[in-house]
């Protein structure tokens, strides 16, 4: 076993102790969740592991498919980040085995293969998200957090509540501070996504992929325009704005 335990497991033996993040500006505490990184590129793995650790996660790293498979099948993790191309069994094979062993841990695929067909193959094998290399760390972090969140909530909730903002998915109704807010269908979906990921950073790419369901590069930040329109409706008429812009990363709906 050549597995490197990059993050000292002494940080949180149980894996669930609350610890402070390394970011002094964001005075947020997160649960020290366990993440498995299977990535053969040394340098990429180093940055990934370091960044995740700084964000407060406990990280195990496997540098090849064999070790990755062993860890994925034997240790409990909250999220697995799997490179698609690995020495030994490749990412698809690992995730396939993991799913066949009834392990439902969310999986984020990393790949230099960004084609639609690669993405589909990854998701078919049991991956939950797919990120093409190179990615910005904030993008990866946002997606990891989204996956962690998804694991803990029932996605089919038909009533969402974030602070004083309420959304009834069946009646297609949004209410803030008791006042009805009228949204266009797309704005509704946008807000729904933000509410399901309240308190997390949501990147523009995540919005494009999940709200518009397209995988392409909008030249201008068209998403920003839609966000600002949404803000006009859910923030402007009220005293306290809740839809925050996270510079260099994306947006966040304040809890």
């Amino acid at each position, binding site marked *: 076993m050549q597995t490197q335990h990059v993050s000292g497991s002494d940080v949180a033996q149980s894996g669930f102790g609350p610890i402070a993040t390394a970011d002094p500006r964001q005075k947020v505490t997160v649960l020290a969740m366990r993440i498995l990184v299977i990535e053969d590129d040394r*340098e*990429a793995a180093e940055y990934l592991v370091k*960044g995740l650790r700084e964000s407060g996660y406990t990280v195990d790293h496997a540098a090849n498919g064999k070790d990755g498979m062993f860890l994925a099948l034997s240790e409990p993790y909250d999220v697995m980040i799997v490179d698609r191309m690995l020495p030994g069994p490749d990412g698809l094979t690992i995730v396939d085995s993991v799913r066949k062993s009834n392990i439902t841990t969310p999986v984020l695929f990393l790949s230099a293969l960004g084609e639609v067909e690669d993405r589909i193959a990854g998701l078919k094998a049991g991956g939950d998200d797919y990120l093409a290399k190179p990615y910005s*760390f904030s993008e990866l972090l946002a997606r990891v957090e989204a996956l962690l969140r998804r694991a803990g909530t029932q996605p089919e909730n038909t009533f969402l509540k974030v602070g004083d903002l309420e959304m009834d998915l069946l009646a297609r109704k949004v209410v803030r501070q008791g006042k009805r807010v009228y949204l266009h269908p797309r704005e509704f979906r946008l807000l729904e996504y933000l509410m399901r990921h309240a308190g997390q950073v949501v990147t523009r790419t995540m919005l494009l992929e999940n709200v*518009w369901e397209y995988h392409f590069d909008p030249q201008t930040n068209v998403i920003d325009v839609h966000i600002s329109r949404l803000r006009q409706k859910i923030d402007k008429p009220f005293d306290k704005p809740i839809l925050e812009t996270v510079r260099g990363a994306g947006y966040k709906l304040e809890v």
Partner: protein
Amino acid sequence: MGWLKRLVRSITFRLALLYTAIFAVSVSGLFYFVFWTTSGFAQRQLEAAIQAEIAGFQDSYDRSGTAGLVMAINRRLDPSRRDGAIYLLVDQVGTPIAGNLGSWPRRVAVDDLWVNFNIRDMEGAPEEIAEARALQFLTRDGFRLMVGRDIRESQQFRRQLLQSLNVGLAVTVFLGLLGGFVFGRGVMRRIEGITSTCRSIMSGDLTRRVPVGNANDELGRLAQNINSMLDQIERLMRGMQQVSDNVAHDLRTPLTRLRSRLEAALRKLEDPQQIDVIESAIADADQLLATFSALLRIARAEAGLQRNFIPLNLAAIGEDVAEMYGPLAEEKGLSFTAQFEPGLWAKGERNLIAQALANLLDNAIKYSPEGGAVTVVSVLLKGKPAFLVSDTGPGIPDEFKSKVLERLFRMEQSRTSPGSGLGLSLVQAVARSHNLEIKLEDNHPGLRVTLTFSEALLAPVKIETPTSLPDAQAA
């Protein structure tokens, strides 16, 4: 009869025709040689028989005089011998003494020693005028002897031979022409095969190869050479793609690291001024990353994996993209019109088509001045589905219309506006892989871009929610 027209024009047909002509000339030469030798042989045989008989008569005359000659003639006039033999012996004044000819023929055509004449009054001769060939012979006592043969049969044989040779020649020429047609069509089909393969290769399918057929003939060798040339082109293209992918990737990796470091630094900063500096540095890094991503996207779009293409509802994509960009246009104070004809379907990759349309709309919005108008529609143009995007911006001067589609080309006046200069190149790459036709026209004022698909698909029928089916794959 289009193929016939093409056939007549084609080189192979002309070659086949020339070949047939040469073949016909040589065959007719051969046939007439056969004819002359065959008919000449028959005549020589006839002449030899006559000469042999005259030699016999000479013998009889020498031995027994005129009486012997008459006896010999009468012996030969045995009615059971029906070989068309003609004999006539006349005395000094022309009175017939013996033989089967009524009188000495009046008109004889003299050919060397031989005479040709018509027989009218030969005993037992058929009623029609017969032709004969004979030798005349004068005895010592002034009697004249003529020995000949009725040559009707041999002449009929000649005529029949000539006729069959003519028929044979006609059949040969006909078969030659027919063979030429068939051969020409066969060759033409192989050449057509090569042409159509080349055409589909030009449209981006570099994996296609020319059918080789018989590897040993010229066309087979030509096909093999074209194929090995294509192998080499494909190898070079792969290499070039690999290199550009590697360059983009190699540059992106340190850029990504740079960005990560800046992000890490940002998290430790407190001074808002420093935060500002780092944030704009991150924005620059993002711009660079976006450019490299766009270059890679172009490379991938150009590679055009047509096997992944599925039927797309163009109106659904148009509405999605218009819905995405409409607010941007309105924000800029532009009037925005989007109209998509329902029921237009075409094959393609959903994200690439959306990307192309998005880039066109993005440009249209970017370059239209405040108060301008941006329009996006989908229509059927001459049976082909098309997207039209028009703006009221400065437009593109004619001399730049082809250049703007090249990578990284930006007109001087647009250098100041943000963007990678890859927007239209990406549209071009998508167009190339999807066989779309891009047309840039003046919108008076502004630019109108038409993106025409090469063929329309019939809208799938058994679909409950037409917009969601083709989208399901990408979701």
